[in-house]
């Protein structure tokens, strides 16, 4: 790609986007192997099909039963296609909610891991209510009584990421990004030129540091030297520490306190002035 206007800010933003998308970056199933024991995947939404772009299941985290919900990208071409490049269909979001409700019923905390370019834009996804599936997850996650800890490990692609991203704590890996639209999509709309993606990435403020500054995330999880792809084990170990601490904090709260805290966390997001 020819880069237009390669200022340091633009380059930093687009470099982070590229690291978040790095093809050697650990994905959810890699983290699950390194962080959990007794993992059993739970399939399907009980309505239409089992979306391979979303992983859900039960496991133990440091001995404690938890539910896991995550996006899953594929490593090689074949797996990537099978997992639809980590772009869920409505059925994936419905599976996610089904397993989260299961966890709520039996009092187990929910750990979600975000890494998706976005919800799948396709005819079948629209026919089966992509928007409705995302919307319902946003509403229901706001009132699920058990702790929900969200970790953005790679790409936080818009509504498709947020649909498993409402929780008590939202942390992001150092090279993770979170955005309302992909830099390429934004560049195509606002500049009518995909080569403006680095400028768009900088303008959209997608990096972990910017997200922290604007109150979108709670903490930045550091990555091993060079990035998480350089040392999966160490990356997982660092994430484990953050998960343990976040869980302990949410555990201390009563259900009422937890839901109030979760509500206020999102309630205060936004920037406006009173005139």
């Amino acid at each position, binding site marked *: 790609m020819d880069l237009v206007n390669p200022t340091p800010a633009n380059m930093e933003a687009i470099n982070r986007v590229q690291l978040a998308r790095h093809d050697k970056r650990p994905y959810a199933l890699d983290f699950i192997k390194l962080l959990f024991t007794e993992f059993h995947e739970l399939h399907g939404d009980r309505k239409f099909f089992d979306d391979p772009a979303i992983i859900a299941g039960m496991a133990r985290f440091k001995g404690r039963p938890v539910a896991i919900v995550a996006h899953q990208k594929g490593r090689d071409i074949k797996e990537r296609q099978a997992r639809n490049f980590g772009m869920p269909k409505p059925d994936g979001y419905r599976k996610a909610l089904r397993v989260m409700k299961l966890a709520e019923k039996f009092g187990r905390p929910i750990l979600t891991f975000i890494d998706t370019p976005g919800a799948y834009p396709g005819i079948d996804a629209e026919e089966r209510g992509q928007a409705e599936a995302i919307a319902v997850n946003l509403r229901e996650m706001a*009132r699920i009584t058990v702790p929900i800890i969200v970790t953005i490990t790679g790409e936080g692609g818009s*509504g498709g990421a947020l649909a498993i991203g409402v929780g008590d704590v939202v942390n992001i890996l150092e090279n993770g990004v979170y955005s309302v639209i992909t830099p390429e999509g934004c560049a195509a709309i606002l500049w009518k030129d995909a080569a403006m993606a680095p400028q768009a990435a900088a303008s959209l403020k997608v990096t972990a540091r910017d997200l922290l500054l604007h109150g979108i995330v709670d903490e930045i999880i550091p990555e091993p030297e060079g990035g998480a792809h350089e040392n999966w084990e160490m990356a997982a170990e660092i994430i484990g520490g953050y998960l343990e601490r976040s869980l302990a904090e949410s555990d201390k709260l009563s259900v009422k306190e937890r839901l109030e805290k979760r509500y206020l966390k999102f309630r205060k997001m936004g920037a406006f002035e009173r005139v």
Partner: protein
Amino acid sequence: MSWFKRQTDKIGEIAPPEERTVKTEGIFVKCDNEDCGATIYRKDLKENLNVCPTCGYHFRITARERLQLLFDDGKYDERDTGIAPTNPLEFVDKSPYEVRLKKAQKATGLLDALITGEGRIGGVRTVVCAMEFNFIGGSMGSVVGEKITLAIEYCIDQRLPLIIVSCSGGARMQEGALSLMQMAKISAALARLDDHRLPYFSLMTNPTTGGVTASYAMLGDLNIAEPGAIIGFAGARVIEQTIRQKLPKGFQRSEFLLEHGMLDAVVDRRELKQFFVDALAFVCPDK
């Protein structure tokens, strides 16, 4: 209408939108429906609630026209008027976000893309939030998110029914992830409204797409739409580029969603008021 004076005082030197529209409009309008193309007397179109008398095509109307159409005698009090957008990301594309905002404010006489009104519908006290498409494509940023959330919280406090009329291209890019988070903020407030067993009706008008559809527009106790409205999550062009196929005729139109089970009803604008009167009677406790 005291709310209107207050509004114009704040923005200053802006002519009320009605006046400006009248000045710039001709006597005839051509129907926007390509298959129709009928020439319509503007007066006839207005009297027909901006629905083409020949083919039933629904012309887009402003947020103010929408509120006047829904409330009894067209009367309502505006709420949360003094909430204005800022430029939190210092966003610059081809023109700075501040310039886009100023232009939109001047063109619409509004501070941002949503008006909240409180009045009566069939005698029932109701809050209606109406989106204004002429304000940066009705995009949802922090102000839209805050005003809808305030409206929901007010409905909970006062035990009132809520109607949101969507007309939006989705989240506002120029406010980045802050726009995205409005989806979570509003949906969380709607969970509370639901917990309080208070009614919320969502009306989708042309267009309702992106993050607006994927949050409050699809969360109504009733989800209804005007005929022929584009409603969806992903934009048609993005889908075409992804799947490299032509989209089927009528894809993402109200009738398509109805057929796929995503809407309770498609309601003609000329029957909309009565629909809400009846729906409110259905959900409100008997007197």
